[in-house]
């Protein structure tokens, strides 16, 4: 339901995997293949020397190379990007259910809380559910209700679907239009530890 960029998650995991893979391969190959080891011994000290020289020749007034400053700046930028990446996960909730401005007299706005509380108060009283939670998400620009229920052990999912559908039909009648609704029936820890359902 959230608008997490899943393609980006995949790409990120893949790129990290690829880097780890290549570094691992390099570390193993360096010690297993004599030709690569010789190449490393011939070039690595020179490369290190060049890096040190570059640092020495680019010193600023304070005795600090601007390469060092640049590297630190790039690393901090990278950290900021990663933080943005982390905090972009799992968004997409909305507080607005309906906005109707087709009338001549003004605008009608209905908050998500109306539908959420209406559904939740119906579902919380049901004996076959351990818990029910309703939230609203924006899916492709359409406000969509998400009903998550935890089923008591042994309850038929068909019965729960029927119960929730009748509650949603009542909501449709109240609002005068159909809001797309998603129902997730989960088991989970609380279902396992709570008492089993009575025969129905």
């Amino acid at each position, binding site marked *: 339901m959230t608008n997490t960029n899943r393609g980006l998650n995949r790409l990120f995991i893949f790129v990290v995997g690829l880097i780890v893979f290549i570094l691992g391969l390099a570390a193993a190959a360096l010690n297993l293949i004599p030709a690569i080891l010789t190449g490393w011994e011939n070039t690595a000290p020179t490369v290190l020397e060049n890096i040190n020289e570059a640092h020495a020749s680019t010193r600023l007034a304070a005795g600090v190379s601007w390469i060092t400053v640049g590297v630190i700046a790039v690393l901090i930028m*990278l*950290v900021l990007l990663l933080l943005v990446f982390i905090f972009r996960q799992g968004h997409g909730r909305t507080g607005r259910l309906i906005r109707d401005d087709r009338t001549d007299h003004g605008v009608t706005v209905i908050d998500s809380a109306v539908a959420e509380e209406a559904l939740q108060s119906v579902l919380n009283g049901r004996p076959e559910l351990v818990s029910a939670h309703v939230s609203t998400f924006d899916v492709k620009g359409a406000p969509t209700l998400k009903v998550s229920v935890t089923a008591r052990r*042994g309850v*038929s999912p068909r019965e729960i*679907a029927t119960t929730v559908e009748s509650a949603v039909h009542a909501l449709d009648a109240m609002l005068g239009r159909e809001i797309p609704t998603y129902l997730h029936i989960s088991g989970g820890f609380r279902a396992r530890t709570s008492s089993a359902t009575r025969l129905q």
Partner: protein
Amino acid sequence: MSTQSVYSRIIHRETTSPRATLAITLAIIIILLIAYAVAETILSLIGQPSLLASPADMGIALVNAPNYLAGVMIAVGILAVLLGLILMIAAVKPGRRPRHVLDADRVVVVVDDEVIGSALARHASYEGNIDPDNARVSVSRRRAVVRLTPASGTSIGVPAVDRVVTEQLERYGLRPTIRSKVVVDERGKVGA
């Protein structure tokens, strides 16, 4: 935006994993590594003693690593190759969650396989006249296996249980459809 396209998007997103946990974990590890690198660099800039090794020492150690760390480098390298492969596979796989879509008219319904299993277990144990704790159901994408342990000295009518389980599955109307199989343990249990 049509409701149908909203529903098909929801079904896709709810039956597959966003891989958020893995991505966030990797991002945090990388942030910690960078923080360490920046800390070492700044410490060496202001002439303070390093935490583990200064950047200059690290460079020298890296150049000479094959001389005295060959065994460790091979082992770590092979581990890294495996880890990298696992990450790349995790990124490419479809990442299905153990869930099924349940046909309904008004709402789109997704059920955890666990819920399907516990409902089947209850109906099977009721039909087989045993305690629900002695019915174990494992649900995979296209199969449900119901295992029943009878009370010692009694028998369980497999065709009847099989009929009840199949009937339940038909009533749920799951996508993808699940075929069922009922297995009764050879050995009974006292008081089951």
